[in-house]
């Protein structure tokens, strides 16, 4: 009986390893077809198309991802990557929404991408930033206070006083790979790489954009103050007028 149980356990483990290997092979095949033109065949962000892109593709070997819900220094959640893969990034960025890719294909390609950075395997429980389930109500007062934070923490140094991405520091901005950063005009919310709902804005402000010049505001201002800043941005740029408090 003990031999039988041992055999079953061994068979189960081997099946798991083989299945995982098949999944990685399938993921690599999908990656080479769909992702490698931009991200490169070794996933260093140096694909055949990359040299002509204004926003350079990710190097998947570094574990640096712009959109995530984990604290700075932690690898993103699998769900974060799945969301980015499915929704794409802003309209200046060439990362499309792969919503038409089959779900199991998306899982397979993410499994392959995660295999390129060992910490995805070792950091099983990265520290996640807590997000509210629903956004707090926007009021005239939160908008006014948010304007104060926009000025107070010097968002305008990069984004410009009027949000057009023409601040005094803009020209010198570089990402972690040394590429020039083209800031989004805040009045064009379709360019926001992390989405433009109030919840998206909160996440972007709270986590920052890894590898870019956009810092995390976590610890700089409180969550309540971040929401005030979100309300100002939403009211001023995303849907001016429509989200004005009644």
């Amino acid at each position, binding site marked *: 009986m003990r031999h039988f149980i041992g055999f079953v356990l061994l068979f189960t483990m081997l099946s798991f390893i083989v299945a995982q290997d098949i999944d990685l092979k399938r993921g690599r095949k*999908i990656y080479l077809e769909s992702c490698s*033109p931009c991200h490169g065949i070794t996933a260093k962000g140096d*694909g*055949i*198309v990359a*040299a002509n892109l204004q926003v350079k593709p990710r190097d998947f070997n570094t574990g640096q991802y712009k959109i995530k819900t984990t604290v700075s220094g932690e690898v993103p959640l699998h769900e974060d990557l799945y969301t980015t893969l499915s929704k794409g990034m802003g309209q200046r960025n*060439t990362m*499309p929404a792969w919503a*038409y890719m089959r779900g199991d*294909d998306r899982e397979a390609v993410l499994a392959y991408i995660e295999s390129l950075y060992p910490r995805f395997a070792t950091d099983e429980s990265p520290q996640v930033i807590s997000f509210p389930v629903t956004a707090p109500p926007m009021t005239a007062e939160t908008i006014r206070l948010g304007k104060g934070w926009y000025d107070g923490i010097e968002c305008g140094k990069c984004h410009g006083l009027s949000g057009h991405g023409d601040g005094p520091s803009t020209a010198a901005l570089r990402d972690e790979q040394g590429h020039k950063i083209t800031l989004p005009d805040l009045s064009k919310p379709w360019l926001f790489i992390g989405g433009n709902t109030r919840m998206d804005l909160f996440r972007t402000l709270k986590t920052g954009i890894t590898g870019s010049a956009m810092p995390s505001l976590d610890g700089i201002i409180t969550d309540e103050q971040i929401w005030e800043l979100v309300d100002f941005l939403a009211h001023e740029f995303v849907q001016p007028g429509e989200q004005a408090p009644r």
Partner: protein
Amino acid sequence: MINILHFQPRVPFFHVLMVIVFLGLLPQVAFATPGYGRKYGKPCQTCHVAIPKLNDFGERFRVNGYQLPGTIEETAPWSIQAVHFSGMLHEMVVNRTIKSGMDAVPATGLPAKGQYDVNSFRDLGGHIWMGGVLGKHLSFFSSFGIEQELEVEGGRFKSPTSVHWEQAFFAYNNVLNSGTGLLNLRFGRFELELPYSSLRRLSSAMAPYEVYNIRPVKGAVSLAAPKVGMSVYGVHSFGLSRLRYDFSVLNGTNAHFDTNLKKDIYGRLAWSRYFAGSLKKVTVGGMGYFGTQNLRDLAGNPFPNEAMIEYWEHEHEELGEEFNVHTDPENVNFNRLGVDASLDFVLFGYHLNIFGQYLIGHDDDIDMTDEHMPYFVASGGSDDAGGDDHVHKTMTPASEEIEWLTRPFDYTGGFIGVDLILIPAKLYLSPRFDWVNITNQWADEVDGDAVRFDDPYDVPAAGVVETRHGSDIGVRKMTGGVNDIYKWVVQLHYHPIQPVALMLEYGWQNNLFGYPEPSETLYNPNWAAGMGRVVSIDTTWLMFMVMFAF
């Protein structure tokens, strides 16, 4: 002589010159589809190096039926919310100098020795494209051009606005559910899967790929022009390698009809290998086009009908006049064989694409009458009562045995170019060199034989050769006997903002492929649309073009 001049309208010299000079200005305008950008919310450089050239991702998108590579969209056709329209407006201004170096008195339609300067706005117009996914596996594409084009009618120089339907096809994609374009079927009017698309090259309509546009007989097939037919095409990946294939069955006419019983065949295979590091991609490929045409296929259906032949025969018998006429409807075969290579790499941070094409073309008989071109019969000559010292093609009485001669046409040529990205998504430099060598052409010798006498108004005979038919015929070159075409073109391509492209282009061309019309005693252009040859006309141009895609 029988009066056949009403079949051959005389066109003022300058207007004909303009036609010849602008032969290269076919309506081949940049081709990009902002509708796809709108659908997927992505900028142009997602799929384009620069408008209109596709990058590697764009090629994968296209071969996968206008879907992201690796995906199959399952939208039901009846649930499509909108058909994606795209458009482009364009206009160019050209400053062009034409130098005719022909020593001989030119045949009708060619400029005499001298220099001619032209400065003109042109190609004012637009294109409208529709395309996309109609449902699972089903995609389509259609393009209309609305342009003012050069036209000569009744000796008048005109530029009417015309609408032409350039492409219209359906594709049944991913027959094997690959999501990668492994096997696709296409029906309609489409551009061949040539190694380098004429519609998506980084040079203006003034600088087409010369070797794709050589058409021995005016109106005959051009590789570059869209064809009517069907094709099976696709791509298969082997790890880091990809194999592209295409097999097409076509009308060989660039048109919606094909009057012969045979279909043209086109095939292409290309292998690509991707690399990590500075070298990005290497592609090598080969192609073959095997076609059949007869005179009925040509524009205007120049092959004479029975009534015309009967009339001419009557005139011939009654009046004893001579004329030349093609009376044999037999097919003539032709082929084009090519090899190509392309290299993508990054050097000092700049991406370069070096590409080249070599092609061999052969037509069994450019008169397109199989082996039934009448051999020259002395209409006068020293042995004849008329004393006419020139010979020309003539209809021989049925009682006499006719000697027929094949008039093959052969050429080799190609191009090599570089597309260099100077500033990503902004500025590009594209130099290219084209060459064509035509080894035998109208009025040249074939295998040591002079098969066709030149224009009787031409320069005196340069020599006498023994033909394989035992007759001595003077060999004279109609236009100086040039055989080579060379062309350099350099374009600077700038996108100040996404939908706008500004192009500055300088081109230099030595000799031109044209359609000089011999005199009616040799050849009637109303019956066969004219045979091409290299003529000694050099040209340079400086062009500025603006395009706006929406």
